[in-house]
């Protein structure tokens, strides 16, 4: 029973991690209608920057700060140079162009940082564990990720629903001309939104750095999961991304933790292990299929994008 | 209740978008062969009403009966099979297809057999010949091989009508067929519609009052989603309520 609680906590933590990535992706899609496969590249840039700056300065916080700045900047540069031309294009062009960006960024990273994975450690202050569930010391750092994820969710909620920028964002999503008529500089708005999306990816990368391997290709690895999250939540919906991320995090974690055991109740050990782990690796895809059968537009469909 | 022989009955149709009531308890009865016009100021809910009859929007409440079937919950294609066809207020064609292909596809939609994957549809006389006739009838003879996107605006409107007619409908829903047309084109379309009168039952949504009063057998006036009057053109012209609500502004 305690184990179940702990696994649920693990699932939530994984979910919040995915949320940080999914939020940026879905925000950019919701407002600019841009399908950005290169979101994972920004995540990678965040992790690499955090690792490099932390190693140089000795301060993790500086590393995270630098990662936020660099990814936001890289995002805005990419937006102004490449992505801006894609907003009015079909999704097909977007997929291909951002696919090309993945190639380019990966190779550049390999040239700049070399082939060996980088090192980034948890700062000493966050390194310990706390026993929030009796008998199961939980890493403080993972609790921090939950906290940051929740804060970002809250922050985005306030930003979108209660600020002038948020109002423009919401208006921009439904009606470009109207925003133009309000006198807002829509180009700048889009660049800023993209920068925000990139910054979130960078934050995810920097926070993931001490837990996960920092290597070329880390972005693509997690990108597919992020897509599943976004699709489940409803593309363009930040609310949906949060719910989707938590669902995926929980499903994946609980599936991995308990499926092989469940199979062992009915099968001999070897086939149970094989069947259990194979099934566990595709539970989230099954979840996605199941949800889409009932809700083809995801859990929180965004208005005005039918057939877009 | 109106005459039971009507081809289309709309009873108590309502549709809300959030706080906005787009269609408010609308009743409509169209007799076979009748040309019925639906008019009203901008935002009166004409297009919304047509969309519900055509099946693109689901009403919140009310009932639509067409040719003896209650079609309120039917999908579009089933309604089309029963003989409902529509044209769009904003031109809606297959822009890369030629004019002839556009109409041929409409003919094909009516004939079926769309799973045939081997014979060349561009050389199928069962599609091409009726399509060519419709183009001729609508004054597009000689424009067969022009891609729809390259036709003049007026021609596109004619093509749109040709496609609606090619599905061999019992009821035509025409949503502002004259929108954006020059006066010469409009005149031609009016005479065309007059020639169709009697053979087809038509629900016409139109802003051009000259056209409406020249063509319509009866007129329904819609304001804020509500039908405030339904009568012959002469009676509508004389109706005080209509004049104040709507026609007065337009100086009829």
């Amino acid at each position, binding site marked *: 029973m305690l184990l179940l609680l702990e696994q649920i906590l693990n699932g939530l933590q994984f979910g919040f991690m995915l949320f940080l990535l999914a939020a940026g992706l879905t925000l950019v899609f919701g407002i600019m209608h841009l399908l950005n496969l290169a979101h994972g590249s920004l995540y990678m840039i965040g992790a690499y920057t955090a690792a490099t700056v932390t190693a140089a300065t000795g301060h993790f916080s500086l590393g995270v700060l630098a990662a936020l700045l660099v990814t936001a900047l890289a995002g805005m540069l990419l937006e102004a140079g490449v992505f801006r031309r894609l907003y009015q294009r079909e999704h097909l062009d977007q997929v291909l162009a951002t696919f090309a960006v993945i190639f380019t960024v990966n190779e550049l990273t390999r040239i700049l940082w070399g*082939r060996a*994975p980088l090192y980034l450690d948890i700062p000493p202050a966050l390194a310990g564990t706390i026993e929030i569930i009796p008998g199961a010391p939980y890493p403080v750092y993972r609790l921090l990720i939950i906290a940051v994820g929740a804060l970002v969710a809250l922050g985005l909620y306030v930003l979108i629903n209660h600020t002038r920028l948020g109002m423009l964002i919401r208006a921009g999503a439904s009606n470009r001309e109207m925003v133009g008529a309000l006198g807002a500089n829509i180009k700048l708005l889009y660049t800023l939104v993209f920068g925000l999306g990139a910054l979130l990816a960078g934050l995810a990368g920097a926070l993931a750095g001490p837990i*996960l*391997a920092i290597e070329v290709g880390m972005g693509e690895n997690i990108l597919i999961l992020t897509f599943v999250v976004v699709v489940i939540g409803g593309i363009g919906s930040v609310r949906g991304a949060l719910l989707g991320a938590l669902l995926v995090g929980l499903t994946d974690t609980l599936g991995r933790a308990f499926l092989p055991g469940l199979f062992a109740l009915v099968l001999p050990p070897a086939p149970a292990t094989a069947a259990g782990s194979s099934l566990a690796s595709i539970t989230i895809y099954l979840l996605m299929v199941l949800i889409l059968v009932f809700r083809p537009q995801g859990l929180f469909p965004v208005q005005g994008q039918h057939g877009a | 209740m109106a005459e039971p022989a009507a081809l289309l009955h709309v009873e108590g149709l309502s549709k809300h978008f959030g706080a906005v009531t787009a269609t408010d308890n609308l009743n409509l009865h169209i007799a076979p062969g009748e040309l019925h016009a639906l008019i009203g100021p901008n935002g009166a809910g004409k297009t919304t009403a047509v969309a519900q009859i055509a099946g693109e929007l689901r009403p919140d409440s009310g009932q639509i009966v067409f040719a003896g079937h209650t079609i309120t919950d039917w999908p579009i294609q089933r309604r089309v099979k029963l003989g409902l066809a529509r044209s769009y207020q904003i031109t809606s064609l297959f822009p890369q297809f030629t004019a002839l292909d556009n109409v041929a596809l409409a003919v094909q939609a009516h004939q079926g057999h769309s799973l045939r994957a081997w014979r060349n549809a561009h050389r199928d006389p069962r599609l091409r010949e009726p399509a060519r006739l419709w183009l001729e009838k609508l004054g597009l003879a000689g424009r067969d091989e022009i891609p729809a996107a390259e036709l003049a605006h007026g021609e596109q409107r004619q093509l749109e009508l040709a496609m609606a007619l090619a599905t061999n409908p019992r009821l035509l829903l025409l949503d502002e067929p004259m929108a954006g047309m020059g006066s010469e084109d409009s005149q031609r379309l009016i005479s065309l519609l007059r020639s169709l009168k009697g053979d087809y039952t038509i629900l016409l949504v139109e802003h051009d009052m000259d056209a409406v009063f020249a063509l319509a057998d009866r007129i329904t006036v819609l304001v804020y989603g509500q039908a405030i009057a339904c009568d012959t053109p002469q009676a509508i012209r004389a109706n005080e309520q209509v004049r104040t609500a709507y026609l007065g502004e337009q100086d009829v």
Partner: protein
Amino acid sequence: MKQIVLSAMLLAISLSVMAVAEPVKIGLITTLSGPGSHLGEDVRDAFRLAIERGEGTLGGIPVELVVEDDGLRPQTGVQIAERMRERDGIGIMTGIIFSNVAMAVVPRLVRGGAFYISANAAPSQLAGSGCHPNYFNAAYQNDNLHEAMGQYVTDVGHRNAYILAPNYPAGHDALAGFKRFYQGDIVAEVYTQLNQNDYAAELAAIRAANPESVFFFKPGGMGINFVRQYAQAGLKDRIPLYGPGFSFDERLLAAVGDAALGVINSAQWNWDLDVPGNAEFVAAFREAYGRTPTLYAAQGYDAAQLIGSGLAAVNGDISRADALRTALLAADFPSVRGEFRFGNNQHPIQHIYARQVVRAENGGLTNQIVGQIFSDHVDAYAAECSM
């Protein structure tokens, strides 16, 4: 008359000199892009070092190294191998890192008469029933290091073990290899998704099971993730962790950090191995590339030396396939592993050592040999090979 004979002799000599001067081409197909590309880089760099130290020769025979990146895509590997073989006429190849690329390339290549000397990839199929006279493995058989860990964990006296690997063939082989030599109980055998990032669920299950030891096989980035998260979860001080040397090469250790400090792992080589020539190799490698060679570098270097010994025996004429094969099988070269010999399936029979991750003088992490687990270890598939 005398003059004619003399000039004819001179011509003959100059011709034969020219024949020798034409360098033997060696194809090195390896992974230089994608995850795990630092393994390919190490193999390539060490191979180049061997040629440089021979001043452009291997075994005294001039060679030309043709390097190409397979991008960890089997189809690309097949294509490169085909081109090297057919268009460039290359008869000796090496360098493939990953089993899936090797399985795509090697069987066809050697059936077609070319020689393949593996510097890393060693799938079990090629060691057993799929063994071939033209295929030599200068590194190991994949299971060797796992088997050694099974033996080690038994020797230490842990009564039970919790074992994990990714859900793919090398992972299944790894745990089978461990179990082959482990005498205690298996608490659980867990297969995780390939390229899994987060191991929180598995770690919680380990804590709940409370085993005496944990053995894991997680190549590349997965290993970094797992070792770090293991330490972060506070498990490292409670349950000792064991793994094969793959997850503890010096370049990965730099990325894992202190989470790996003290962990015992297995390898057939280490930089501090006290055998003739090893110190010189390590020094030369550090000098050339500014980093400590990993076990992959040592394998690349040995593969080069092995090829050199073969080339020397046939004086660079690789069309003498039988003689070349005999020479390669003799493995008469100064291996940085010390004594080196092949078994019947042309995989090494070699010592396997226990290494411990310690702090190096420069403050970084490195491995240090702490004991020998196997001596003259023969892999488990040799018996299935009919050679």
